[in-house]
């Protein structure tokens, strides 16, 4: 059944591949023609050489006119092969690189629309390698592979024909003996496959150990575990040595063995050929051409078997890329989607149900009305799923039941872009783009230098930015590089300060900033929040108490909802949390 399912998928993959190739199709046909011409011409040369040698019978018996004729022909053939091959290579490059660029553009386009659920549940490294490595592998494998495949087949056929014209019987010797080297190669490849698997598994194990131990040196040293870790490393390293040696050695037998078989073929041709020459069935020149062919004949076979695995691999890569392009893509805006730009900031949740996985329900029948300018605090112990709410508000995830509305419009009926524009967001997990400090602040909108500086000042980031090596032009990398967690958070705040959207989402926006600075920023935040609907994930009592609505979460669910006083009166989870914190503060 799996087989049946696979066939249409393959066909579909081919169809899409061809659609990318469409633009380059004339060029592609041209390269195939050139390849064919190259093969015929380059195989003709040994025959010409043989004929030239036949013109040299012995002292005083050399046919110089005959030699000259052959040599002119060789010159023409070699010249043509050179030109054709160069044009073919250039065209191949052009086609391959263009297809790569096209596929990559589509893949990246998808990436910017990729479902957050896809991003969250697939390792980033894997997705990156689809867009980068897989695209390369498939274009290289498929296009170059195809030309190689074609050239290989053409070479084999052409060689056969040429050999047959010289001497059919010796051709038979070559045809019967050469497959031996192919069998040998595949025999060794099969035997060594497991060894290579073991090697790469062991390498993976070693890398994991290295990452863990070298990446956590402070812990290792604090507990004086250096020697133990080294022992553990040595044990894996020793196993790696053994299995690497086996894999490398046994696989390296391939070349000598196939070369040996080629030598046997060569010797057999020399033997039978010499007798044929003695018997008058062939000339010495013919034998020379034959020996040259015998030497080359197995090469295309080996190449083809390599190309076939490469083609299969390429196809698998293509399938992975297409599945990324298809599966991961989030829904596009509906036709006639509402533009939320300039929203008043009214948000409602109606009977919202949500869960990341069907087995674990998180939010059930959540109803919430937030009027413009109101402040919503989301509280709860660490890891209780506060970010779930943000995921739903921003429509990073879609609700499973009910609806979230902004100004009465279901967010699923709104233009995604305009929805995102309504909110300004500062996350606990600060993300810095690779670029200058200025570019990072200007993410939200174009702004003048004065506006950027004003935003940085409001976020209390100006003073540390000035002390950076190149001030606002300092380039920072995506992992934040030399900036501390607190400084990165200040930058993210400056970003929002510059964008000034109608609604705010602050997810522990000041968690890495020391409380004295935080206090100063709070004033700027307060000014910004005035008149703006805001959703705040926070642990600070004052922020929570001043909120119009408090959502209390625990273990991923919303357990309570209300104002501070209402919730205290309920004497539920919130009042317990409050008690603990109050006790910490006072007692």
């Amino acid at each position, binding site marked *: 059944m799996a087989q049946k399912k696979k066939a249409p998928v393959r066909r579909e993959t081919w169809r899409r591949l061809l659609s990318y190739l469409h633009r380059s199709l004339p060029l592609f046909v041209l390269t195939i023609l050139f390849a064919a011409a190259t093969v015929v011409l380059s195989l003709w*040369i040994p025959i010409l*050489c043989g004929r030239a*040698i036949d013109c*040299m019978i012995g*002292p005083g018996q*050399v046919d110089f006119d005959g*030699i000259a004729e*052959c040599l002119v022909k*060789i010159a023409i*053939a*070699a010249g043509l092969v050179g030109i054709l091959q160069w044009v073919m290579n250039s065209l191949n*490059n052009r086609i391959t690189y263009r297809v*790569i*660029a096209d596929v990559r*553009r589509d893949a990246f386009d998808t*990436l910017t*629309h*990729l479902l*957050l659920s896809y991003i969250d549940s697939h390792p980033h490294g894997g997705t990156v390698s689809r867009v*980068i490595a897989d695209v390369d592998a498939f274009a290289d494998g498929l296009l170059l592979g195809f030309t190689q495949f074609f050239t290989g087949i053409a070479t084999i056929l052409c060689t056969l024909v040429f050999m047959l014209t010289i001497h059919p019987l010796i051709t038979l010797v070559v045809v019967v003996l050469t497959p031996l080297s192919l069998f040998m190669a595949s025999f060794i490849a099969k035997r060594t496959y497991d060894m290579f698997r073991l090697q790469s598994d062991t390498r993976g194990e070693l*890398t994991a150990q290295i990452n*863990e131990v070298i*990446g956590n040196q*402070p*812990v290792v*040293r*604090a*507990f*004086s575990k250096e020697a133990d870790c080294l022992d553990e490393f040595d044990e894996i390293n020793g196993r790696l040595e053994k299995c*690497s040696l086996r894999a490398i*050695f046994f696989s390296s037998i391939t070349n000598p063995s196939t070369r*040996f078989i080629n*030598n*046997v073929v060569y*010797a057999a041709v*020399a*033997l039978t050929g010499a007798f044929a020459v*003695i018997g008058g069935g062939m000339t*010495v020149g013919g034998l*020379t051409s034959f*020996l040259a062919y015998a030497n080359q004949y197995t090469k295309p076979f080996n190449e083809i078997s390599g190309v076939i695995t490469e083609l299969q691999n390429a196809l698998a890569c293509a399938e992975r890329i297409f599945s990324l392009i298809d599966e991961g893509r989030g829904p596009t805006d509906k036709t006639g989607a509402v533009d939320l730009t300039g929203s008043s900031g009214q948000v409602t949740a109606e009977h919202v149900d949500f869960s990341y996985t069907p087995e674990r329900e998180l939010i059930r029948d959540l109803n919430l009305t937030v009027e413009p300018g109101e402040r919503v605090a989301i509280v709860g*112990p*660490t*890891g209780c799923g506060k970010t779930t709410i943000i995921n739903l508000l*921003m429509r990073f995830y879609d609700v499973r039941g009910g609806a979230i509305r902004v100004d009465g419009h279901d967010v699923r009926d709104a233009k*995604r872009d305009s929805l*995102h524009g309504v909110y300004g*967001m500062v996350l606990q997990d600060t*993300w810095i783009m690779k670029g200058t400090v200025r570019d990072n602040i200007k*993410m939200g909108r174009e702004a003048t230098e004065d506006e950027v500086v004003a935003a940085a000042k409001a976020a209390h980031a100006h003073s540390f930015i000035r002390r950076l090596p190149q001030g606002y032009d300092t380039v920072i990398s*995506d992992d934040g590089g030399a900036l*501390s967690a607190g400084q990165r958070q200040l930058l993210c705040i400056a970003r929002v300060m510059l*964008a000034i959207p109608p609604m705010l989402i602050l997810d522990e926006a000041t968690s890495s900033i*020391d409380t*004295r600075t935080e*206090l100063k920023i709070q004033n700027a935040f307060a000014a910004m929040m005035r008149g703006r609907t805001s959703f705040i994930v926070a642990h600070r009592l004052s922020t929570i108490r001043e909120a119009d609505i408090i959502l209390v979460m625990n273990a991923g669910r919303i357990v309570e909802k209300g104002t501070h006083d209402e919730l205290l009166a309920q004497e539920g989870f919130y009042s*317990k*949390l409050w008690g603990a*914190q109050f006790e910490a*503060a006072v007692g």
Partner: protein
Amino acid sequence: MKTLFKQLRTYALESVLGPLFKLLEAMFELFVPLVVADIVDRGISSADGGAVVRGFGILIALGLIGIVCSITAQYFAAKASVGCATKLRHALYAHIEALSFSDLDRIGIPTLITRLTGDLNTVQSGLNLALRLLLRSPFVVFGAMIMAFTIDRRAALIFLAVIAILGAVVTVIMATSVPAYKKVQSELDALTGTTRENLSGARVIRAFRMESGEREKFASHSDTLYRRQLTAGRISALMNPLTFVILNVGIILLLRTSGIRVNAGVLTTGQTVALYNYMTQILVELVKFANLIISISKAVSCMKRVEEVLGTEPGMSFPSSAPAEIPDAPAVEFRGVSLRYGAGEESLTDMDFRIERGETVGVIGGTGSGKTSLIALIPRFYDATAGEVLVNGVDVRAYPADVLRGKIGYVLQRASLFHGTIRSNLSWGASDADEEGIDAALRDAQAKDVVASKEDGLDSAVEQGGRNFSGGQRQRLTIARALVRRPEILILDDSASALDFATDAALRKSLAALDYRPTTIIVSQRTSSIRHADKIVVLDDGRVAGIGRHEELLSSCPVYREIYESQYKKEA
């Protein structure tokens, strides 16, 4: 490359025998055209069947010797290269563990990991290739030329010219295409970076509606990449056609000369065939050699990176025997300590205070005020640039590393666990800890429910980095790990940040009640976590802004008061 050669010396036999057998193989290969010439000249021209069969026998024998030699060579090369790589990997790993934290900070952990993994793998395969082929290809090329000289001097001059021109062409093409491909690679890296960024920053990029800008950025990188690939491809596309044409020009000249020489009776037909065969061998080997040089130069630059690390002298050494401690000295004492990382500004200036045995001390201060730097001096992760740090009255520099660190239970800011089980992680603290000790540590660290929530209890699997636990769970387990050793000095570096207030409070309560009364140092940004400490050290910009009890500091230390008020003013 010195280290590599030093390691190779342990495999001296293998690394001599490998190339030697490879050369033998090549030599036998060079005899083949001579044998064929003999078949033509003696067997065919005089119709001597015996000579033909003899020639055939020699060819087969040469093939057999060839396969034996080359398999032997492969074995020795594989053994030497894999062995060397294994030894180098061990040496590098051990060296990294011996480097000081200042060294590690300067070099950077990610590049160290790359050098241990990818770089050394490249060195291994480069070494293997070099042992097998570095001598072989030149040997075959020049061997073919020498053989040609033994046959006919005039014809051999053509060989000389062809080899020189081919060599020059291959070198020029390689030399221009390698930098061109490097440019391609750097653009590909930029593309990879943009792709990665769009995954890790997906939320922010969408929240700020930067998708179309990102698409443009990607398109422009992709465009540059396309153009650079074409440029690089254009150069390397010349390689095959050019070498093919040059070789055939050589063949044309050779055949013409041979014709004249055969006519004059200086050369036989068989010898002409041999010369022709030698000529075709040259090209194959030259191209192989050029590719080999590229792989080897990659391996050499990887090896240089490895040696750079190996050549770094550890910036810290430890004595081997434990010093005599002073009985009534304070547990920890800072005497005029300053710390500077590299050439930067001072991170700590003039630290001068004592922590008595059994005391609980809080360290508080803003982001970047030097809290972590201060406590990292106690287990001697860094050496003070001025002044001295004493533990039990003895300079930390007088302790062997394991003795000093064995006294300390250190809970780091970043809570990381190691793959294994909860039990194996906890016994990092003390390998001889019994069930009871582990249980007590878990209880005190408020981590009993973490263990209880897992199906297999203490034997539940911990994945790499502890990623199958939440931040708060990890934090409590790392505290338990430190408590298992019942340390003399317990250091908690902002270790309760992921805990909610209730758990944090319970933790402090149980730490205060530990029966072995460790000297406890708590670093925090929250005054609530340290207000009950016997002594609070307030840091501001790397200097001590105040030392004392909570109430004293409230009145005497403006920085502390500001911190406190920023957290409590509105509630109090």
